[in-house]
């Protein structure tokens, strides 16, 4: 970990850039298997996620997208009965190693859920919470700056700057989702995971989030699970198609949606799945 404690790193763009070069792999998954008790939900999946790119995970309901996504920040640890096998390397380090602190890991790999889940606190504290517990801010002024910067990046600042003390839950659904994204990026993650982040939003709020994803792409590795093929096509550069816990096809998003190689992918994206 190299979160530079005690310095106003958030205000210096060069420090918030991911450390690896363009196109490099941020996460490398090898032979991932996930079990819920006896039932296997993910079958030997190997794939990597490049920096500064959006990877979309698509596939029919129950195929294991959320399960696989949760492997990337060890959220499956919190599910009783769930067992993950295989290696997930970040910066050459296996995140499942015993000496990796899952709380720290989750600040490096932020997550945004289907239903916006702001803390029952003020808008300000929703953002300030993470930087505070991770010691990323040097005093109140610094914290203010982090809150503003994060809200600006999430495209929410103009809408909330005069009501920072209002509860996060007083915002609209789309605003809450952007608040959650602001909260995720406030702790300087390297990776942002999103599980159907727009499924409860109208087309305008969805467009705002998609614009935000496109903007965040220049500095993060983003993985998004979506049921909307059109959304996957709009926001991602790479698309992975899952079926029955298997990774069926992974490719350039353009190729997946105009000329998939696998019949199962073709059937799914064209609405022929039986």
């Amino acid at each position, binding site marked *: 970990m190299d979160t530079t404690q005690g310095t106003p790193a958030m205000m210096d763009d060069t420090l918030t850039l991911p450390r690896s070069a363009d196109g490099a792999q941020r996460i490398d998954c090898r032979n991932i298997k996930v079990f819920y008790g006896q039932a296997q939900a993910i079958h030997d999946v190997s794939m990597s996620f490049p920096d500064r790119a959006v990877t979309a995970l698509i596939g029919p309901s129950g195929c294991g997208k959320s399960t696989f996504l949760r492997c990337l920040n060890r959220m499956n640890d919190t599910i009783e009965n769930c067992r993950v096998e295989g290696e997930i390397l970040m910066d050459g380090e296996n995140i499942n190693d015993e000496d990796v602190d899952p709380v720290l890991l989750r600040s490096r790999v932020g997550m945004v859920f289907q239903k916006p889940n702001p803390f029952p606190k003020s808008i300000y504290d929703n953002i300030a919470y993470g930087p505070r517990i991770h010691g990323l801010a040097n005093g109140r002024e610094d914290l203010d700056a982090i809150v503003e910067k994060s809200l600006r990046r999430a495209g929410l600042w103009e809408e909330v700057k005069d009501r920072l003390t209002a509860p996060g839950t007083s915002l609209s659904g789309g605003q809450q989702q952007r608040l959650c994204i602001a909260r995720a990026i406030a702790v300087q993650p390297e990776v942002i995971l999103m599980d159907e982040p727009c499924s409860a939003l109208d087309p305008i709020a969805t467009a705002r989030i998609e614009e935000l994803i496109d903007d965040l792409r220049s500095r993060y590795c983003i993985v998004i699970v979506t049921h909307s*093929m*059109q959304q996957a*096509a709009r926001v991602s550069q790479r698309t992975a198609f899952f079926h029955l816990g298997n990774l069926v096809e992974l490719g350039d998003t353009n190729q997946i*949606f*105009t*000329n*998939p190689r696998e019949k199962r*992918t*073709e*059937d799914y*994206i*064209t*609405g*022929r*799945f*039986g």
Partner: protein
Amino acid sequence: MSDHIVSAYSEELERLSADIMKMGGIAETMIVDSTRALSANDLELAREVVLRDLLLDVIESDAERQIVSLIARRQPMGHDLRMILSAMKISSELERIGDLAKNIAKRAQRLDDNVNDEMRNAIVRMSKPVSRQLNNVLNAYASASPEKAKLVWESDDDIDNHYNSVFREMLTYLVEDPRRITAGAHMLFMAKNLERIGDHCTNIAEFVYYQVVGDYLSELERPKQDQV
């Protein structure tokens, strides 16, 4: 190809491809009948071919409306997307072919008495491989065969060669008897129209190939001959 879960979507795609085939059938008979009118000097048939072009235009604009609606309502992906885009291109190629055949029929009505049978035959002879190209490419479309499409695409040189020889043959008739110049000019245009129809057939072959395979027939593979 198995059916969509939404069966109305499959029906819409089938209707679109049936309309493309209908256009292809009409364009094909327009070529055959315009040259038949020419060889038999059948002015009535020539007039009828000219009228048939209107039908082609109507089906084309209807196909275009179907395509816009499909894209807006179904948001096609994968093979469906390629099929719809190809249908849009192919229908406009067929519409152009119809225009060119119509033009041959119009010119067939304007020929004067100085035309001889050899001149008529030269055009009729050239029309054979051209309508065969169209027939083959429509077959490739109907059977979704990239191999057949590629064959059509590779055979365009034959038509170009044919055109060059008809062009030279026509010139000798004109040199022999300058009174043939007006009719001869019409017939040179007919030959050129047939040659253009051949080009449209190779375009269609490219779209069929793209639709089925998802890749482009590279222009590099085909040796290009000199053109007049």
